[in-house]
């Protein structure tokens, strides 16, 4: 709906101060879209993909040529400019899709799971480029299932569950609000697991959670909590003290059950 490719079903929506139903075309002229699935034309070359797209926006060829050179430099694809798209790796295609979405110098860039399916190296290159765009003042609207991605890129974050806002704020705020500074993960011998869970029920944590294989204690100081657990006579097989993350927030808000 924000991309003006679906009609709003209910409520009110304005994008860049305009009505998406009436001014969809004019709004789309100022947006960039990186869809979840690449929609590149794999029979064309890298440069031709940008040319076709630039023409959609009515840009003169000269302008497209100049921007293409700059954009391919920006996404580090300049050496593949004349290559066909088909044999490019997933990461390269992703970067080309991002370059293509920037051909009209958009004010808002909409990204739908931009790094899904990419290897860690490729993900970090994409993150790095997106961060630079953000620094240049481009508004990024990002949907993702990767909480580390959200933490890396987002200033303002909305957790959605079944189409409703479950929480809203900066990543830091959300962690402070819905999680503890640190999380202590304890793993016990399977035969001792239930016993330990029972014993830790009254442990002075902000919150505790008993999973099938682990017990999580949400605390302010993980090391101190671990010492206290040991002092109470429980000896975990493995223990891990870590920072509270957005993933914890997300799981707390949307639950651990697999749905949909």
């Amino acid at each position, binding site marked *: 709906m924000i*991309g003006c*490719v*679906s*009609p709003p079903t209910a409520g009110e929506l304005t994008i860049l101060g*305009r009505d998406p139903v*009436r*001014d*969809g*075309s*004019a709004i*789309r*002229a*100022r*947006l960039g*879209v990186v*869809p979840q*699935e690449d*929609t*590149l*034309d*794999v*029979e*064309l070359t890298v440069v*031709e993909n940008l*040319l*076709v*797209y630039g*023409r*959609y*926006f*009515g*840009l*003169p060829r000269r302008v497209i040529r100049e921007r293409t050179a700059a954009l391919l430099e920006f996404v580090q694809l300049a050496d593949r400019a004349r290559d066909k798209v088909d044999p490019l790796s997933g990461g390269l295609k992703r970067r080309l899709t991002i370059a293509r*979405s920037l051909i*009209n*110098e958009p004010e808002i860039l909409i990204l739908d799971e931009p790094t899904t399916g990419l290897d860690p190296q490729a993900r970090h290159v994409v993150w790095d480029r997106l961060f630079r765009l953000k620094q240049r003042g481009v508004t990024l609207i990002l949907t993702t299932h990767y909480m580390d991605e959200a933490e890396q890129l987002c200033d303002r974050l909305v957790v959605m569950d079944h189409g409703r806002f479950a929480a809203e704020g900066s990543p830091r705020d959300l962690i402070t609000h819905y999680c503890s500074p640190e999380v202590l993960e304890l793993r016990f011998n399977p035969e001792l697991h239930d016993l330990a869970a029972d014993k830790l029920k009254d442990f002075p944590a902000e919150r505790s959670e008993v999973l099938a294989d682990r017990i999580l204690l949400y605390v302010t100081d993980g090391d101190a909590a671990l010492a206290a657990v040991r002092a109470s006579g429980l000896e975990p097989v493995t223990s891990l003290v870590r920072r509270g993350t957005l993933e914890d927030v997300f799981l707390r808000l949307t639950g651990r059950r697999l749905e949909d």
Partner: protein
Amino acid sequence: MASAGIAVPGAGIGWRYGSRSVRAFGCWLTVYRRIWRSSIWSSVLGPLFFLGAMGLGLGGLVDRHGTASLGGVSYLAFVAPAILATGAMNTAMGEASYPVFGSVKWNKIYVAAQASPLRPGDIFRGHLMFMTMRIAMNAALVTVYMRALGATRSAWVVLAWPVATLTGLAFAAPIAAWAVTVKSENNFAYLFRFGMMPLMLFSGTFFPISQLPGWLRLLAYATPLWHGVDLCRMLSLGHVDLPLALINVAYLAVLAGLGVWAGARTYRRRLYA
């Protein structure tokens, strides 16, 4: 275009560099520059084989038994304009079926274009322009072959070229309007088997429809291909019955117009949902 006088980047430039439909057309030209070689076989050699086999091969046999029922012309002269019109229909069906479907499902050309200022109607009209270009290209080639093989009897045949293109458009526009709504490509098999085949055989193409029983003849008059064949034949042979020709043109133009009208709607329903 931009409404209420608000400056919109891209809109002004678009006005200067052609309408949005033309921009969509440009995409297909770029794609065609890449893949035109694969269409060579069907475009260049196909009609030549057809004219040779039907016009000269079969024609040799037919002509020996007298050509009165063909209007006194050789079988080659009789069948060539029909091959022209039929070829336009075949090109139209090919270009308006799988490529349209594929632009939604396979290479997603439409889906990509949709994130740009192009509207579904622009995407449709741009693609239709490309189909028309392909139809016109193939029809021009067949017209040249006809002239070269001595299959024409009149210089009016130059008008058979735009007429064949219109015939193609009368198929391409409604078929594209339908193809964009199709959920499975299997549907196109029906189009080719139950649409293209009978039309090709029974529209006065290979034999005059006076050979058909009366009720089937009426059916033939109702098919768009017959109108295209009839008009191309009149022009190629130089016997133009003006009122009939006008009916032919009107029929084809109305069909094309309906297709253009419907396509803008079906594309919108499919792409803006």
